[in-house]
Every structure is written in C-alpha cells, then in structure tokens.
C-alpha cells in the first residue's frame, strides 16, 4: 500500500530525513517511536504534501501512484489521512460545514454522489457520539478554541468520516487524558480492517496497549534504526532510546 524508498528530505537546506525506507501493507498497523526532533512529524508532513519540505532523493508510492507528485488534496482523495500533531484553528469556517465539503470532495474522487444532508447529519452525530464529541463542538468554528483533547478527538472524527485507506496519526495521544485515550483508541480500532492501514506516531507505550501494532519502528536521526514487534515498544519504555539503540543514536 505504501512504499517509502530511501527518502531524503531537507528543510531550509538542512537534512532531516536521511534515507528512510518503510513498507506498509493493507491491514497493517505500524507504530513509529523516536526521540524529539528525530523527524517523525517531518515524515508525516512530507507524506501529506505540506509545503516547505524538499525531497532530495528517494521515492514514495501509494497504491500504484507516485505520492510525491500529487497535491495535498489529491493525496487525501486517494485515501491518505493525516491526523495532525497540532491541528490548526480556523475561525470563520464551521466545523460541520468543513467536514461536509471534505467528505464530498473525497466522495467525488471515488465516483460517489454528494452525501445527502440527512445522511451526513446522521453519520456525523453517530461518530461524534462514539468519540464523546458534543453537538456544540460540531457547530463551532473549526478547532477554534477547542481544548487540546477536543482537537485530537476532532481529528479522529474527521478520519472516521473520511474513511481513508491509510491513516497517519501524529501523536494523537499526546494531551489526552486516560479516558480520552481509550475513546480515541477505540475510534481507531473500529476502523481497523483488512483494507486499511495505520501509521501511528507516538511517544508512549500506553497508546500501543490499546492500538496493538503489527510492527514497531524506532526512528532516530532521520532514519528507521530498528524494527520489531510490539515488544520493542515495551523495551523502549523500560530502557529508553539510548540503551535500545546503543551507538546508533546520534548525540
């Protein structure tokens, strides 16, 4: 589904990703852990198509498409979703209206008709209820004045509505209280299916207790340094990056 080969990315001339390779198959859940500044969000942004990142070499294919050649909206329509580490507040754009526009854009790309208003309302209410999002939050402007936790839930709500093929969650767990973590993880688990894959970026083993990954990667210095099963996350939690990676962790 997603194939990243030897990806090198620079920001303002400074290399951040330095030869990253990763292969994700349909149905898989991958977790990426790694120290602050190791390039996790950079990877997520490059995959979603954010400006300001220079791909100096390497390739990314998504399905059978050259992902890096697509505009951000084309990537979203092709089924890529990024739950952002810092969702942007957009005053003046109503949350629900925005979501309907997004959903219809994605549906159109899939050859589906626009979603009827009543069905949209039914689905969004259902998803909001499951994620513990109040009606009032749906009516507010997009992320505007939302608490940290509310923003993260809202990201998951969007994911649930848009039904992507590949969802990248960038620290969706940070800033969540224990109950909210469970709610969000349940939201992700509900979407797990043989056709859908997840790339979960996190600092905490706790999230991976709820969303059990197939593969855990440890990223440092712009590269995946080690991969393993769920037990690798536990090892990291106990011993820390320094010990696990040994000499491979750049000072």
């Amino acid at each position, binding site marked *: 589904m997603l194939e990243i080969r030897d990806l090198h990315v620079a920001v303002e001339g400074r290399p951040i990703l330095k030869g990253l390779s990763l292969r994700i198959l349909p149905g898989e859940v991958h977790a990426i852990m790694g120290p602050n500044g190791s390039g996790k969000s950079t990877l997520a942004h490059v995959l*979603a*198509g*954010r*400006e300001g990142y220079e791909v100096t070499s390497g390739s990314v294919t998504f399905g059978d498409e050259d992902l890096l050649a697509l*505009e*951000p*909206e084309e*990537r*979203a*329509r092709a089924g890529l979703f*990024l739950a*952002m580490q810092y*969702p*942007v507040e*957009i*005053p*003046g*754009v*109503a949350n*629900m*209206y*925005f979501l*309907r*526009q*997004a*959903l219809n*854009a*994605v549906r159109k*790309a899939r050859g589906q008709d626009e979603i009827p208003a009543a069905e949209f309302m039914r689905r969004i209410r259902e998803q909001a209820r499951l994620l513990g999002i109040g009606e009032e939050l749906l009516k507010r*402007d997009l992320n505007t004045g939302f608490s940290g936790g509310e923003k993260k839930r809202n990201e998951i709500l*969007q994911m649930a509505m*848009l039904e992507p093929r590949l969802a990248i969650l960038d620290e969706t767990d940070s800033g969540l209280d224990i109950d909210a973590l469970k709610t969000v993880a349940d939201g992700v688990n509900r979407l797990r299916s043989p056709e859908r894959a997840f790339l979960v970026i996190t600092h905490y083993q706790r999230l991976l207790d709820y969303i059990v990954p197939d593969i855990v990667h440890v990223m440092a210095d712009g590269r995946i340094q080690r991969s393993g099963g769920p037990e690798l996350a536990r090892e990291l939690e106990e011993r820390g990056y320094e010990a696990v990676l040994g000499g491979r962790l750049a000072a």
Partner: protein
Amino acid sequence: MSAGPAMVVSASRRRIDPDPSFTRAFAELAPRLPGSDRQEIAALRARSLARFTELGIPTQRDEAWKFTPVGRIVNRPHAADVPAEPPLERILPHLLGGPKARRLVFVNGRLVPQWSHVGGLPEGAAIESLTRALERRTEAVAARLARDDGRSFTALNAALAASGAWIELAPGVVLSDPVQLLFVTVPGASAPMSHPRVVLRLGSGAALTLLESHVGLEPGPALTNLVLEGELGEGASLAHDRLLLQADEAALIGKVELVLGARARYDQTTVALGGSLLRSESEVSIEGEGVECRLAGLAVPRAGEHVDTLVRVHHRAPASHSDQLFKSVVEERGHHAFAGKIFVHRGAQRTNAYQKNDNLLLAEDGEVDSKPELEIYADDVKCSHGATCGELDPSALFYLRARGIDATTARGLLIWAFASELLDRLGDRTARAAARRALAARLPTGALVDEHEDAA
C-alpha cells in the same frame, strides 16, 4: 527672496482648481435646486460653491488625502440632475429592511416617490426628503448647510444638495422597523453626480436602524458626494448599516459626522464592495459618559478599485468606549487605504478605545496603506491600536487541502472566513444577506460560501 511665494506654491500643491463643469452645473441647476425660491437659501448655496472653489480639490499633499488621487478620479465634467428610470426589478433586490421598512429612494439624486414611503410614523418621528425639509424647516436645514468644516466636498454638497433626508426622532421614540435610504446611480452617457445631505437627530432614548445603500446599476463614470450628520441624545441608539455597492468607474465620497451624548450607542458597519473610488470618512465625537461606539468596515477592492477609509473618533468625555475594526481583502490591482485616529481629549479619563485594521493582501500588485494613530491627552485610559497585513495562513490552507478540499475552494473559504466576521456585524438581517450576496459575487467560490452561511 521672501517666504511669501514659496508658501503659495506649497499651499497650491495641496489643492487644485475644480473642473469648471462644477460651476457650470451649479449655474444651470441653481434655479431648480430645492429651496431656491428662498433668497437666503439661494445665497447660501452660492456662497458654498464659492467656498468649494476656494478650497479646491485636495491633492495627495493634503494629509487627509495622502493615499488617494481623488482629483484624477472625480475632477472631471459631471452632470447634475440627470433623469433615469430604471425598471423596478433592478431596484427590488436592493430594497432592504423587510416589508415594514420605511424608505426613501433616490435615482441620480432625484426622489422616486412611487418607491418611497415613510407613512405610519409614530408621533414625534419625522422622516422627510431634503426637499420637503427645506420647505418645512428652512432655518434648521440652512443652519446645517451653512456649517463650514473646511472640507471642499462638504461645501460642494451644500451648494448642490438636492437629495437626502431629515430624520428626527423625539425623545423616547423607538422605530422598531428599519429606515432605508437608497441612493441609486444610473450613469447613462452623462457622468451624473448627486450630493445627498442627510441630517439625523435622535432625541434622548430614541432608537433607529438606518440602512444606507448606495447602488450603481451599470458601469460608467458617476459621482456621489454624501454628507450625513447629526446627533444622538442621551441614551439614544443608532444601528447604521452602510452598503457601498457602486458600479465600475463610479466614485462615492462620503462623510459621516455624528455627535454622541451620554450613554448613546452607535454601531456603524460599512461594507465597501464596488466602485472605482469609495472614500468613506467618519468623524464621531463622544460628548458624554457611558457611550458605546462601534465602527466597523470591510473593503474588497480589486481591478483598479480604490477604497479609502478615514476614521476620527474623539473622546471628549470620560468613561466611554469606542471600538473600531476595519478589514480589507485586496485582490489584483486593488488598493485599500486606512487612516484612523483616536483622540482622547483632556479630561476624558477612563476611556476605553480600540482600533484594529487587518488586511489580507492577495495579490502582488495590490496595495494596502494603513495608518492607525492615537492622540491621548488623559492619563487614565485604555487604548490600543494595531494593523496587520498578510497573506492567507499557509498552515490553514494546508489543513483544508489535506482533507481533500481543492486549493481554490480552500482559499475561498479562508477569505470568506476572514471577511464574514464583518458582515455579521451588520445590524439588519436583510442588509447582511445583501452584503453576503455582493461579497460572494466578488469571490471565486461565491456560490459555495453562500451555502456555507445557509448551513451555519
């Protein structure tokens, strides 16, 4: 060499002589102007024209006109009193205020009686066309026209004012339905000009929603030179929605000058969405305590359009509050100039005065000039002012696009989000709807954003 000639030179650069057509138009029109049968009015008008000629057309050396080459746009031959009979269906979309609104409709400065109606007023309320007011309260109107504020366009207005209104509410009179003044311009072949004069007098505790619309029905040179002045008594309240929707090539120069008594409330929202030049001056003098004064404006100039907003708020009494929020969205070859000044005069302690000017500059060949100023002569005050000028937030654009929304729609949404805050300030629902339509027509994603409002 003496200093004399040099001074003459620099003074002369601050003005240029008016086009002779203004004097010609006056000579031709004078016998027909309302009030001309009264000797003192005729003399007053002639004096006003002489004053206009003396003051001249300001150049950009004049600090108040620094950003606007007004002469280039309006100092050209115009014809006064040009008849036009637009069909009703062109007017209907601009009739605002709901079925019970009272209104006066002017086309090229002429009252259109069949579209105007001001009946059923409660006792103590008067809404009269300027012509009628000049018959019924000659001295009072003359006193207004005679006032010299040193501004040439005010003098020109006094000389030629044939349209406009006298609106007066006695103490305690509350008009629950809006009053609309609709000024329609139909340029035809003759570059018409009109000079509306509006006088507003609200007694203590009186309340009014005034919808002031300027509408151009087709492109072509034209000039509207408005003066709107008056007083709000103690505790009076005025919601003043202004829709400036001139057509291409037409110019509007307007001055609003109001005096606010204690605990008065004044809400002005000006939406400038069309015209080669929209010059909007507001001068508000707060003369009592506990006043709430809110001034807001949105300008969306493009394609050679020039919007110039000049605001002066004077705090002359303690413990009042004024708040200004002016925004612009400047598209290709658009120009927005904002100059706003808050004066806190001696003794106006415990004043709260705010001013904000936010501009969205969307094209490299657009221009924004912003000059917010404070002048404070009291020590116990809270004042702030600020101006911003920027592009659309790239991270917001990315966020929308990352959810599948195409770049054009995403931009349209963000522009709408920026601008619509101002439309929400319009006091009247129908004025809001009309402004939304006009704004949507200017934005690439017009239809879509209209739907946005319906959904919200």
